[in-house]
């Protein structure tokens, strides 16, 4: 009998995940149930203090703001990405357009955020432009608020939404839209009843790729956000570095991880739950 060594091949990945993901994760969970050390660190004594502290209105408000910013930016990202994916899939210059989508990745994430500061800042391009054409007498505050955070989040997420959407739009049979029109649907009915349902997998993937990272945002609100746009990630960093309350930072992280996990499970379950297609059944039968 041949031995099955298949599982052995997963060992490196398992090791990697254990060392760099599971163990740190467990440490965070353990820390969240301990007492805070005076100058950072933890005191090895069981305590629920860190969780009790979460119920302060201030923290709950930050959670709400985080969810709000994530939802709005995900929605806007989708709104912009679907037409772009449609356009690319129907265009003759697909490869060039896809390349253009990917090019921003060649620049470091932080540098791209700083580029936005250069555009939106009080001395930035936009304000210069507005003043030079006489639209406004003086600069207007574009940075350090929720809008700036949403704008930059949408900007950074666009490629992550466009690419999975493109993959699905590309597979879509556009003659179905004509069939829908033929059967009496208006253009928008054809889009909403035929096109969107058929690229559902792409939409869900795009949501997962944009909503989940947005929940865990740190750099963007830190650099272009203000008092109204503190997100959970910023508070965790503050507790860890400034207030030196490691258990509280840990309990917040645990909550954030839970929320994220629930969100992922929710979206993954939205993927086609309907009966397996005939080809899938046949493919399975062959195995």
């Amino acid at each position: 009998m041949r031995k099955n060594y298949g599982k052995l091949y997963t060992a490196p990945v398992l090791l990697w995940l254990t060392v760099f993901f599971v163990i740190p994760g467990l440490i965070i969970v353990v820390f969240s149930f301990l007492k805070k050390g005076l100058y950072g660190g933890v005191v090895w004594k069981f305590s629920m203090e860190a969780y009790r502290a979460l119920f302060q209105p201030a923290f709950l408000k930050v959670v709400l703001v985080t969810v709000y910013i994530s939802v709005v930016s995900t929605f806007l990202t989708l709104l912009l990405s679907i037409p772009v994916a449609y356009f690319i899939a129907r265009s003759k210059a697909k490869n060039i357009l896809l390349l253009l989508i990917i090019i921003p990745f060649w620049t470091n994430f932080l540098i791209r955020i700083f580029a936005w500061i250069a555009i939106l800042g009080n001395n930035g391009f936009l304000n210069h432009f507005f003043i030079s054409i006489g639209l406004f007498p003086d600069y207007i505050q574009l940075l350090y608020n929720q809008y700036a955070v949403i704008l930059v989040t949408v900007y950074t997420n666009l490629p992550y939404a466009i690419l999975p959407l493109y993959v699905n739009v590309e597979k879509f049979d556009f003659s179905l839209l004509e069939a829908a029109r033929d059967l009496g649907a208006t253009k928008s009915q054809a889009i909403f009843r035929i096109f969107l349902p058929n690229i559902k997998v792409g939409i869900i993937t795009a949501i997962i790729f944009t909503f989940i990272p947005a929940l865990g945002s740190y750099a963007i609100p830190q650099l272009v956000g203000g008092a109204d746009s503190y997100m959970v990630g910023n508070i965790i960093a503050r507790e860890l570095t400034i207030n030196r309350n490691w258990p509280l930072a840990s309990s917040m992280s645990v909550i954030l991880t839970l929320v994220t996990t629930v969100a992922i499970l929710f979206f993954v379950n939205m993927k086609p739950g309907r009966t397996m297609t005939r080809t899938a059944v046949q493919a399975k039968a062959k195995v």
Partner: protein
Amino acid sequence: MKGSDLKIKNLSKSFGDTQVLKNISFRVKKGELFSILGPSGCGKTTLLRIIGGFEDPDEGRILMDNQDILELAPNKRGVNTIFQNYALFPHLSVYENIAFPLRIKKYTDGEIKEEVERYLVLARLQDHIRKYPSQLSGGQKQRVAIARALVNQPNILLLDEPLSALDAKLRQHMLIELDSIHDDVGITFIYVTHDQQEAMSVSDYMAVMNKGEILQVGTPSEIYEKPVNAFVADFIGETNFIEGKVTEVGETTGRISVEGLGVLTVDKDCPINVGDRVKLTIRPEKIRITKKEPVFATNPEQFNVIKGKVDEVIYTGFQSKFFVKVNAKYLFRLIKQHVKYYLDEAPISWKDEVFIWWNCDDSYLVEVSAS
């Protein structure tokens, strides 16, 4: 009475430099099953797409019950199409596919159920309502497409080679079904195909197209028996062509001299003059074959008799197809029906010397060019 009358007037369409439709005109009467027949790439789909509203013509008009419909959007035309690939909605079940036009029209669930069920029965799909298109066979998909189009109660149904994806046997079967559905619903059908037998067996009228032009419009038998040119004769069924020069013109017949065959008698299907070059078509089933030289009791001058040698025989039970070689240029195809018990005969076989003959009434002059 349901159904609409459709008039196509001087329709032309180009894609870039290539003219795909050239001055197309024809009329389809209310309730007719009209088929458009032509080789692949001749512009059939383009013509249907223009009627359906998915493409704009460069010139021409389309009148439905005497109203110009070119300005109307596809969803306002009262025309439904069965697309070449069916275009079923993959994310909807059979039931919901058929219900789609009704949901658009905002029917209530009760009304939808009633209507959809009626067409499920008509298309014999009752056992498949919960399936998704990817779980259906080709014939079932096609029936869903038909039911979905009919539930909308169009005045005209356009069918773009609906049977091309099916195997020969199922095609026969679906064709009969389509024909009976046409009889049931009584609306106008415009049926596009490149299969001449399919077209002939169901159509009231048909149009033969080639390279973007309509060559002939008529009943199937008119087109089969009186093709307007050699292309139509050849495209609609098998045939034999003979080219010759007119040597004599009589009251109802003429004589032509054919290189390699001698002088033949032809019916004067159209005006001819001595010296004209003509092309004659004679269908395989109209040529007779015997081993002995035939003797004609009446009107022997009406018959053309040619001597040849059997090149090949294809026996198919109810009939045999013969290829008879007369000379290097002329290889005649002909069909003999076995109306008697075949094994009692002395069958004609390969390499036999035979006589083939036909009545000049049975050939048809397809082309005449004055010298």
